[in-house]
């Protein structure tokens, strides 16, 4: 419990740092004063190890392979394996209610282009509806279909196609 708390504190401070670092300065800092030779060397910043809350890496570290669910050919039903993965996702998103995310629906290359766009849409929505049924606010979930345009596995065989028929939950910063 103590270590967990410490981790959260560390992560929270890291998030703060990251937020600061992202903002571009309004004005450029003054050039270093080379004449006096008293340039201020900033102390080295030590970032805590591990991904930060609100990143895909943090999500993936928390739920493992459960970020993505897989489908049979031309199907979009949530089977028991998918349900377990989506439950892990739902727990994560319940724990971090500030996070919004996108479910990307995909199809394998063995379908026609337009049908696959519609199929990816169906798969992503199936995942979204299941997460909503587990209590994740549907307003936090965006959906996009990439059809067969963005394969994860590049070969043309059953194994690759099975990896590409997927709905992937993605946290986009």
């Amino acid at each position, binding site marked *: 419990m103590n270590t967990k708390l410490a981790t959260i504190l560390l992560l929270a401070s890291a998030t703060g740092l990251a937020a600061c670092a992202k903002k571009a300065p309004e004005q450029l800092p003054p050039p270093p004063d080379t004449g006096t030779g008293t340039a201020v060397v900033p102390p080295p910043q030590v970032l805590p190890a591990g991904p930060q809350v609100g990143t895909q890496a943090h999500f993936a570290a928390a739920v493992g392979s459960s970020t993505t669910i897989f489908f049979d050919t*031309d199907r*979009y039903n949530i089977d028991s394996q998918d349900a377990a993965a989506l439950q892990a996702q739902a727990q994560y998103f319940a724990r971090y209610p500030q996070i919004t995310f996108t479910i990307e629906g995909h199809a394998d*290359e*063995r379908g*026609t*282009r*337009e*049908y696959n*766009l*519609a*199929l990816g*849409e*169906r798969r*992503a*929505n*199936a995942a*979204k*509806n299941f997460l909503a049924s587990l209590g994740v606010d549907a307003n936090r979930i965006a*959906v*996009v*279909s990439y*059809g067969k*345009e*963005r*394969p*994860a596995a*590049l*070969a*043309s065989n059953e194994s690759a196609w099975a990896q590409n028929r997927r709905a992937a939950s993605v946290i986009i910063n």
Partner: protein
Amino acid sequence: MKPAFLLVLLFSLSAPASAAAQDLGAPIGDDGLVETTTTDASQVEAEEGISFTVTDEAAWSDIGIAIPAFATDRERATPANEAGTGALGREIARVITANLRNNGLFKPVGPDSLPQPAFAQITAPAFSTWSGRSAEMLVHGYVRARDDGRLVVGCYLYDVALKTELVREGWVVGPADWRRAAHKCSDLIFARLTGESPFFDSRIAYIAETGPKDRRVKRLAVMDSDGANHRFLTLGSATALTPRYSPDYSKILYLSYVDGNPRIYVYDIGTGKQTLVTENSNPTIAPRWSPDGRHILYSMAVAGNTDIYRVPVTGGASVRLTDNPGIDVGGSYSPDGTKIVFESDRSGSQQCYIMDADGRNQKRISFFGGRCATPEWSPRGDQIAFTRIAGDFNVAVMNTSGGNMRVLTGGWQDEAPTWAPNGRIIQFFRTERNSGRSGIWQVDLTGQNERRLPTPVDASDPAWGPIRP
């Protein structure tokens, strides 16, 4: 950031680039009009005598149609060819030869293997010269530069054995449109010899693909029916898919991920302006024109379920044509605009259905085993081309009742057929197993004459426009 703003940004950035050689995202220039004229070579007295220049006679044994260089009345400078109107006449004959050869119906012999007729011979061929070389048909033509800079191109087809003229026509074109005169002449010859409608003077919109399989860059591109006058219309920063030329070539419908989601845009070619096909937060895919260009079909997913809608091209309310828990997608009008063939998986797998243009009387027509996808109604009205999925993906045709199904191709993945304006040739795209490389191919209705179209990079989603006026 709003999608409209992104689009403005994209195209305002690309507009200055049009001046550079890059040709990225530049709107296409206005099409020059092609004006049909009476051929007037006979009215011009030619000074030259008969002088043949034979460069290569090797191909003479195969001759069916002889297409020597087009003559010119007077060698003049033209922006169409830096070497002048004489050299342009040779180029025109080369384009016609390539057109007729590439479509498998003829064995033409072009200007590089033939003697060059003088200008006076265009209307009075030296028939004995050609019959002695076993030419059955003879194409003659001329190029004349007018004082206003436009070009007059005359085209004559002769039957060598009968020593008679079969047909003649002439066109006035701007120098930039000289290839169109060559295509018009090809169409004249093709139509006269086959009895079919013309198709060479037409354009193709398609998707140009580059990059590795998991990070393909997909750009909107257009080209003439023979692959010439190629242009990229989008920059490639957003994935573009499934273009469709409007019947008058003034607009292109296509899908873009420019705002992060798949949406259909209407791209006005003259202005480069793009508008959403419908103001709606739902994804829209699979755009199609009605034959009269007044309506657009699109497919829209609402809460995951895709149905087909129709909207006037001028905007306004959409009409939902299908209402089914299955995926209903695509759609292709019959040439008279009364019916639509589309695909649906309502039966459990992709099959082809026909409905009235208002969505009534939906009924399945494909019952031959396998799946039926991406149906496209022939411009002649009598056939429907589609992607047949039965193990591999192949282009097939059937009649409008789903009968007489014939598979025309034998690739691993051939999909998305599009018809030539005369309904005699089908283009499609073929994807290679594993590499994901794609190219545009075409096949005639016999399935015998198959060839790959030359494109600068990989290519998919061809959409053949109608014959140009």
